[in-house]
């Protein structure tokens, strides 16, 4: 196939160009990363994603057989247990990941939206998990839903989000919230790939050395790696 003059103005071509410019393949699926990414804390981001896939897979099997299946089938009960423990692991990994990113101030360097999408994904996950807990159709769900209704009703949310309405909660749990959460998680991961992992704190001197005003007198801008002149107590936000 040969490109014809004017092809580049097509919407499809423009969208492809925009996508590739924003996230070139070597950024989307990198094979090198900064040397400072060398801590176990970095494992918890991918662990969160992996646990989410196990949550979705086990939840998908439960959805195949219906919400009452796990009460009457040994296999169903086991799949329900898989779903429960994958959610526990998902939250454990996500909370560690969140704290890690907080301690790194991972919003630095125009990465605020990465933090925001991550925080919204965390809150959205809480809402999604909660709808799962009120769907258990057992004593736990009876108690949790009748208790939780008061909080939701007290601020007017309960008027349209009725935790006692099993059908509504089922739709939220298996369709609406996972779709929204999935979108936010994908957005979050693409932002991580686009912006890269936040670099370590640098000193004021290092930052000023590379600032545009300073570049006129410093013709060879240095890499963000700190110099020997820096002391840890001078490290700046």
């Amino acid at each position: 196939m040969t490109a014809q003059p004017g092809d580049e103005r097509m919407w499809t071509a423009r969208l492809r160009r925009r996508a590739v410019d924003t996230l070139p393949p070597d950024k989307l699926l990198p094979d090198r990363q900064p040397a400072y990414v060398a801590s176990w804390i970095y494992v918890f981001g991918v662990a969160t994603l992996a646990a989410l896939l196990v949550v979705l897979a086990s939840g998908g099997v439960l959805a195949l057989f219906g919400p009452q299946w796990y009460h009457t089938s040994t296999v169903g009960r086991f799949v329900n247990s898989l779903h429960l423990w994958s959610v526990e692991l998902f939250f454990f990994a996500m909370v560690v990941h969140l704290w890690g990113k907080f301690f790194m101030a991972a919003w630095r360097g125009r990465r605020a939206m990465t933090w925001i999408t991550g925080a919204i994904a965390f809150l959205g996950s809480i809402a999604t998990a909660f709808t799962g807990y009120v769907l258990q159709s057992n004593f736990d769900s009876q108690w949790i839903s009748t208790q939780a209704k008061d909080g939701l009703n007290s601020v007017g949310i309960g008027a349209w989000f009725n935790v006692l309405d099993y059908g509504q909660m089922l739709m939220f749990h298996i369709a609406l919230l996972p779709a929204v959460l999935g979108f936010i998680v994908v957005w979050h991961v693409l932002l991580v790939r686009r912006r890269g992992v936040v670099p370590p704190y640098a000193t004021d001197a290092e930052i000023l050395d590379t600032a545009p005003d300073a570049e006129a007198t410093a013709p060879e801008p240095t890499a963000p790696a700190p110099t020997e002149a820096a002391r840890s107590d001078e490290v700046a936000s």
Partner: protein
Amino acid sequence: MTRPTRRQREAFYARPWAGPTRRYDIVKEFVIALVVMALLTTGLAILFGSPDRKAITLQDWAKQAPADFVATTVAELDGTSGTATYGAPYTHDPSAGQKLLSLPLQRWGGVTEPIDASQVFVLGPLSTSSDPAISGPLSTYRAAGADQQSSWASKYGDALAKAPDGDPAKVTAGDYGPVPALANGLLTMAEQGGLDGLIQEQGGFYQTNYSRSLLFLADGSYLEAQARGENLGGDQWGMMNETGRYPGQAWLWLYTFWYQVKPFSTSDNADALVWGLMMVLSAALVLLPFIPGLRALPRRLGVYRLIWREHYRNAY
């Protein structure tokens, strides 16, 4: 020494990394993480399983705690039950409902699940009975005026509260009209297992909304007593726990925490206050990068030195 401006700092940290790099197989890392998580999940599921205590039916309630069932039935009739006095979204009562900083958000939400407690929970189900022991008293009750109905129910409710163990059989004689017969009729219906369906089916053949059954059940004290027995009470961090020794929704610890301390634990507006506070805290979490002071906290805490210790060791 001149300090960098915020813009300069942001530009610095946003630059593509030009320092040393290392090999990174992102696909392999993800596959390994997936396998590890799948194995961990399977191991935990095999070892611990999951809780599944059977739901309480209205029949269970009536059989296990008949006195509580009868007292709740009478409270539905005299309009003093939790549901009857709730306000939005169940009843039209402008004076009911919690407020957040004087804002009646609960009332503003509107009545979207209207419930006439006496009709839905008591009179409606009783009207399906052809038993003369029920239909007779029901006719008498319906023929009476609202004040008379209320008077009978209130007096019987007071008498039940004074009776030993709330036992209807030990209530002193009084002018209770047909109310004792109605309460006993509903109890018999529930004990025989018919009430669950009668309350649920009032919305039609196909039903996925359990609001009515759950609200009636929660109006009694039997459900709460069972929950407290499982350490699930509101003052036992109940919202985040579940039956048995399972971790439950541990991530709700902060939300549940507020209910354990004053002023929330003693406020009539506790739910609204806790929700308001959690909304503010959630917004702060999301907008952390823009909040002066908080966004600088990680630098002050210094945990980053541990995370990037190798980087700083090599660099300095």
